[in-house]
């Protein structure tokens, strides 16, 4: 019989993270392999907290240059402008494209901030062993996983414009250094979200019970 309110790990079972097969496993010292797909079995993602923190801190470090440095340089016969992410959005808003400005604002400003803050809060809550709002926290985690990829929007727009708008002396678009940092923030936060193991949040239930 299985306990209907307790985790697999607490009952000596480990689910294969590739094929989902549930295998009895009693200690992690002797690394077992999944009998169906031969993946190394682990109760939780190894060093999840530490890796997630490391990636997240790196993302924070890159966040400022990503937003302060030039993302895109636009030159025409009569004008030349350098845009950061935010000034590019303001330019879009003022030039009759408020709808697109909002989309880019959400993808490039809101989503990265949201990911950084939520992942930080989730990590802190796991460290404190908090049992508060588990259902809300798991939902926040799902949102982070789902929306992260959409931050790549600005990178793609930049690629298309910088490649296409190359009409000698009449109109050119160049990518700025800010885009490197921005790309790094997107990739680092995606890796951080992947390293985070949401099952750690629910382990707090088990620890409190056994005390």
């Amino acid at each position, binding site marked *: 019989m299985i306990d209907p309110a307790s*985790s697999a790990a607490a009952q000596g079972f480990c689910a294969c993270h590739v094929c989902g097969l*549930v295998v009895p496993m009693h200690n992690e010292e002797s690394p077992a392999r999944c009998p169906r797909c031969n993946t190394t079995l682990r109760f939780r993602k190894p060093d999840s907290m530490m890796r997630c923190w490391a990636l997240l801190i790196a993302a924070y470090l890159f966040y400022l240059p990503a937003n302060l440095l030039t993302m895109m340089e636009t030159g025409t016969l009569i004008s030349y402008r350098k845009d950061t992410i935010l000034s590019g959005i303001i330019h*879009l808003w003022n030039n009759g494209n408020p709808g697109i400005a909002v989309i880019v604002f959400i993808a490039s400003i809101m989503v990265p901030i949201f990911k950084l803050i939520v992942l930080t809060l989730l990590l802190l809550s796991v460290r404190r062993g908090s049992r508060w709002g588990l259902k809300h926290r798991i939902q926040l985690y799902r949102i982070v996983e789902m929306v992260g990829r959409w931050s*790549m929007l600005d990178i793609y727009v930049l690629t298309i414009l910088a490649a296409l708008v*190359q009409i000698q002396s009449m109109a050119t678009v160049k990518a700025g250094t800010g885009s490197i940092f921005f790309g790094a923030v997107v990739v680092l936060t995606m890796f951080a979200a992947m390293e985070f193991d949401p*099952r750690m949040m629910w382990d707090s239930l088990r620890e409190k019970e056994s005390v």
Partner: protein
Amino acid sequence: MKNDERPLIACPQCDLLMREIPLPSKGAACCCRCGATLYRNLPDSLNRSLAFSISSAILFIIVNSFPLLGINLQGNANAVTLLQAVQSLWDQGMHLVSSLTFITAIFVPALEMGLMLYLLVPIRIGLVPPGVSPIMRLLQIIKPWGMVEVFMLGILVSLVKLVQDFRIIPGVALWSFVGLTVMLAAVASSFNPRDIWAHLDKDNDGKID
């Protein structure tokens, strides 16, 4: 089957241990503690995901063979394919950003389609291809990095930005890209990894239950 003989399942998001329940067609089983979707019963999943994979592979080839977009400014024109766009950014010295676009918009989608066809075509004709497990693992790892639908939005935003200053010449690849986005979404929603594992179990003569 008695309740206690059904296979065990652990929620991938909260690790609650449960027993599987039979599902009606198109039904989904959710974790009773955190609400995560555990598995779905997708009718005809193998055939459908194979069909969608083949059409997305064809569209992908078209997308990469023709110009995506062209612009025209007072008789001066420029048009690029997807790969040329990546190449152009590389030549401008933005190697990191260029690689990022190449990996997420070209390489990973291509790899994903290739692996899907490698898995599904033999299974469809009743064979099990070698290396199913590592390929399933690889598919799981690369999945978040295929961002065709985000690139589609990127094209739309670029169009709106360009249309003010240039005459735009939409390329064949642009329309194919719309199709590719839809087809890849269809592959993702029709593919059921459980069917692949079920095939593998059958091949092992039910050694593993």
